[in-house]
């Protein structure tokens, strides 16, 4: 969190989104940090068994991390180095023992990375949302797909693409409205509906509204068929607004 201007050392806390192999024993770590948004950094020697912090820099790891950057900014022409890492919460170790939760978590990490597209640009709300979602997913109190859909809907909301599940997204006609248009911004009335829009069940619309607002008692009581229908609509809405696919969504356990 502190920013030591003189010595090019930066400290922040973040979630490890992705790791890529680099050279013999190094890795490039992509993190979503509280103050610096998305940061890519090099972690030297972390693939060796003797590495002192390799285990802390696995995806899903919530860490307190120190970077060393050669430039005057953390995100510059060359990648900063990870010099110290402490674990705040090892979400990965919990999620990995449940394949459903792990795949749902992976989709969260990929979505967070896509939304925090610009390196070094703070995305505090997205960061807090991701930490909260991973904490909920690790606690295992709600079904994994529900937590994922809630995270995706709220990520859309904090990035300015909040869908409507009640009032018409085009004319504002109070709901409930029957039709759902991905391009139209969610629920639409009979007069505004474009060609080819979906007609989900009213229970699905209620479920999605509950997931967006955090009404877990309604969301947990939903039937599996409404959950499946809702997940499909959320995935379509997300990928349309991101203008590209989220690869991990394909591997979710149906």
């Amino acid at each position: 969190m502190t920013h030591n201007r003189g010595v090019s050392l930066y400290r922040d806390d973040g979630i490890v989104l992705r790791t890529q192999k680099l050279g013999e024993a190094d890795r490039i770590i992509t993190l979503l940090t509280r103050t610096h948004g998305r940061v890519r950094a090099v972690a030297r020697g972390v693939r060796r068994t003797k590495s002192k912090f390799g285990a802390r820099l696995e995806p899903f790891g919530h860490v307190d991390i120190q970077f060393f950057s050669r430039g005057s900014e953390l995100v510059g022409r060359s990648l900063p180095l990870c010099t110290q890492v402490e674990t705040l919460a090892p979400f990965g170790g919990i999620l990995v023992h449940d394949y459903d939760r792990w795949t749902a978590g992976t989709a969260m990490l990929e979505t967070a990375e896509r939304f925090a597209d610009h390196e070094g640009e703070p995305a505090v709300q997205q960061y807090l949302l991701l930490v909260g979602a991973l904490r909920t997913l690790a606690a295992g109190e709600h079904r994994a797909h529900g937590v994922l859909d809630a995270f995706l809907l709220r990520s859309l909301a904090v990035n300015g693409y909040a869908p409507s599940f009640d009032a018409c997204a085009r004319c504002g006609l109070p709901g409930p409205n029957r039709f759902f248009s991905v391009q139209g911004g969610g629920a639409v009335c009979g007069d505004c509906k474009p060609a080819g829009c979906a007609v989900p069940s009213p229970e699905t619309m209620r479920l999605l509204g509950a997931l967006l607002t955090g009404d877990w008692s309604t969301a947990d009581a939903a039937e599996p068929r409404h959950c499946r229908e809702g997940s499909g609509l959320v995935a379509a809405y997300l990928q349309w607004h991101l203008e590209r696919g989220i690869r991990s969504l394909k591997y979710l356990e149906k």
Partner: protein
Amino acid sequence: MYEGVVQDLIDELGRLPGVGPKSAQRIAFHVLQADPADVRRLAAALTEVKEKVRFCAVCGNVAQEEHCRICADPRRDAAVICVVEEPKDVVAIERTREFRGRYHVLGGAISPIEGVGPEDLRIRELLARLADGAVTELILATDPNLEGEATATYLARMVKAMGLKVTRLASGLPVGGDLEYADEVTLGRAFEGRRLLDV
């Protein structure tokens, strides 16, 4: 830029993993100055490896025949299969001289974020090997990172109904290290996997 074939050689060497432009130039000049017989031997080895080496039809390990050396060896225990990610892992385990069973090479680990799902690995082939009931133990020796663990979890769930003994390689403290330098994740795993000292 160098003259024709020298630049071609540098460009080709530069495409190898871990070889940058400077290293490629250094290797190219080493080749130019080397004894012609040494260079011919290197060229023959490169050609031969592509012509002769293929993947074992049973386990997916590198082999020169249809079956690899381990699958063709009747002294190896066919009742135990050790599942690894890459052929390199087979060599690492063989170096221990502890394991006398057979292997199955998956060809990677599940990584949804990289677009690698269960159907992209040799899991179907593994299930086919287990179907005849001759295998009694499956050792999951995927990498001790998150993707390796998730792959092991997936496999354990897939074979649960078969009634096999499924084991996972232990994770923990490296031999010869000091406890105080171990990170909390590794130390936590070492505690989880502690064993009874029966003296």
